């Protein structure tokens, strides 16, 4: 795989070129500064403040961080929930997507249709579909319980969005939306493996499982490493689906950390006081980013051997 790099220009830019370079880059630079850098700087500043958006901000030093580390069990429980959510999603999605990619990489009847079907959930709106799932998972008039009861799989309705199963349901939706995405990544990876390897394995009389274990998986190492890193980042950050499905409830059972950040910005009515905490939210967002950064670094260290194709 090629490293991220940019071809350097052929000659030194001429004066008119310099003006044009500046003009042509300016939209991107303005959007970068206003849309991405400015909010970051804002957060770096206000994480040391108390600020509710109405009264003037008040400098409090490290107080927000002290609160995170000593007096905010909700934050840490949301971090735990995030690990359960992301872990559950990844443990099912990655192997399943890989299996689908291996199956659908061979010539078979209906291959194009199956690929199109599995990728389809990534096309439709996460929020709208979470609302549909909310409807499907409904305890009494939801179609899921009704079907399960009709086929005598369960005796009485299950509270899919209740305390016990809400996280499970949220994970199912996340898996539903993610399989096709990773299947396509893996399909592209599989197609980059040289045909000759498979041909010589066939000549040597290798079985299908041997080919999979000895050729496909090792050759996919670098792709797997990058894709799993992306998957970890995306699943740790996901909250839109849960926001619509349960709003973090019941009893904060499905409150993931980015939803917790969202609720510092936009507290929900059921939480009682309707006061935004921009300062504290900034500190929480900062600590969360550091945690996720550490996880990424740990993962890259742990998975470093995957990058060596042998």
């Amino acid at each position, binding site marked *: 795989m090629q490293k*991220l790099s*940019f*071809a350097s*220009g*052929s000659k*030194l*830019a001429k004066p*008119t070129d310099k003006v*044009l*370079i500046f003009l*042509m*880059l300016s*939209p*991107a630079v303005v*959007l*970068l500064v*206003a849309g*991405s850098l*400015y909010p*970051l700087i804002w*957060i770096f500043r206000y994480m040391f403040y108390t600020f509710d*958006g109405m009264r003037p901000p008040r400098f409090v030093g490290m107080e927000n961080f002290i609160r995170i580390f000593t007096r905010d069990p909700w934050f840490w429980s949301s971090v735990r929930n995030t690990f359960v959510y992301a872990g559950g999603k990844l443990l099912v999605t990655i192997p*399943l997507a890989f299996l*689908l990619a291996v199956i659908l990489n061979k010539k078979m009847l209906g291959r194009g249709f*199956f*690929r*199109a*079907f*599995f*990728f*389809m*959930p990534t*096309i*439709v*709106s996460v*929020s*709208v*579909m979470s*609302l*549909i799932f909310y409807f*499907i998972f*409904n305890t*009494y*008039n939801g*179609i899921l319980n*009704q079907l399960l009861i009709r086929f005598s799989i369960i005796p009485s309705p299950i509270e899919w969005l209740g305390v016990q199963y809400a996280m499970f349901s949220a994970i199912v939706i996340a898996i*539903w939306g993610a*399989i096709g995405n990773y299947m*396509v*990544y893996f*399909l*592209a*990876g599989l197609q*980059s493996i040289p045909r000759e390897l498979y041909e010589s394995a066939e000549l040597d009389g290798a079985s299908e499982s041997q080919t999979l274990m000895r050729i496909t998986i090792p050759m996919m190492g670098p792709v797997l490493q990058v894709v799993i890193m992306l998957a970890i980042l995306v699943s740790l950050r996901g909250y839109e689906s849960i926001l619509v499905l349960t709003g973090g409830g019941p009893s904060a059972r499905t409150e993931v950390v980015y939803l917790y950040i969202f609720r510092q*910005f*936009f507290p929900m009515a059921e939480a009682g006081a309707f006061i*935004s905490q921009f300062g504290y939210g900034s500190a929480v*967002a*900062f600590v969360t*980013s550091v945690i996720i950064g550490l996880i990424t670094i740990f993962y890259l260290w742990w998975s470093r051997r995957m990058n060596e194709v042998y």
Partner: protein
Amino acid sequence: MNSKRITIRLMTYFFLLALAVFTVFPVLYAVLGAFKTNAEVTLGGTILPQTWIFTNFPEAWTNANFARYTLNTLYTCVFTTIGSVLVASMSGFVVSRKTFWGKKVLMGAILATMFLSVGAITLRPLYVLMLRLGLHRSLWSIILIQVATSQGANIFLVSRFVSAVPKELDEAAHIDGANLFQIYRMIILPLITPILGVVGLFAFRYSWNDYVLPSIFTMTRESMRTLTVGVVSLRYGESAAAQWNLMLAGASIAIIPMLIVYVIANKQFMSGLTAGAVKG
């Protein structure tokens, strides 16, 4: 041996079919539900409508304001798509072909913002910024933020594609007296349309399906809502319990156009996902 192979094949197909049902069912259920009466939807228990009702769509369209939401979504989507393609193609071209002061810093900043995500709290400074610019009452606030937050990946994608275009073409045009912008417009742009199609498609999908940003920015302005915001708000609406059929009709209005785009361009969607990453 042969019968074993057939069993494996049959099991594979059964597995694929079961998963296909799992992926397609929720979408199909929503669309079919849009043709049921409200009583049938509320009671549940059916997949196909007992009697097909066609009044949900016009009712959602006029009474639940979905005509307005659709218009807002289309407007936002079209300009986010055009903006993304313009910004990414210009910057991607310049970045790929030219060296200039501060290039490393710029690329580093773009890469950093792609991997760093601090969550919804950034919506506060962005909202205040739009307020100062006087854009908080306009869909342009949403358009600009959507273009800004997705431009990083697009610029990388385009710049890689431009790097594959032979430099001799630029040089020939340069000798003929074309300036940088003319080279971009007459030489590069026509040659990179495949990747711009991908960038546009992904920008369209992102804008069409985005929820948190438009829901915050249209909080006090119902007339600015997009489809996703409109559909979800029916869940929290005062008469929510009575309007499941409208919600499903609205959901279908939000889903079906994207599905049509997908049927037309599913190859581009799938290849676009990996165009930048894997085929380095």
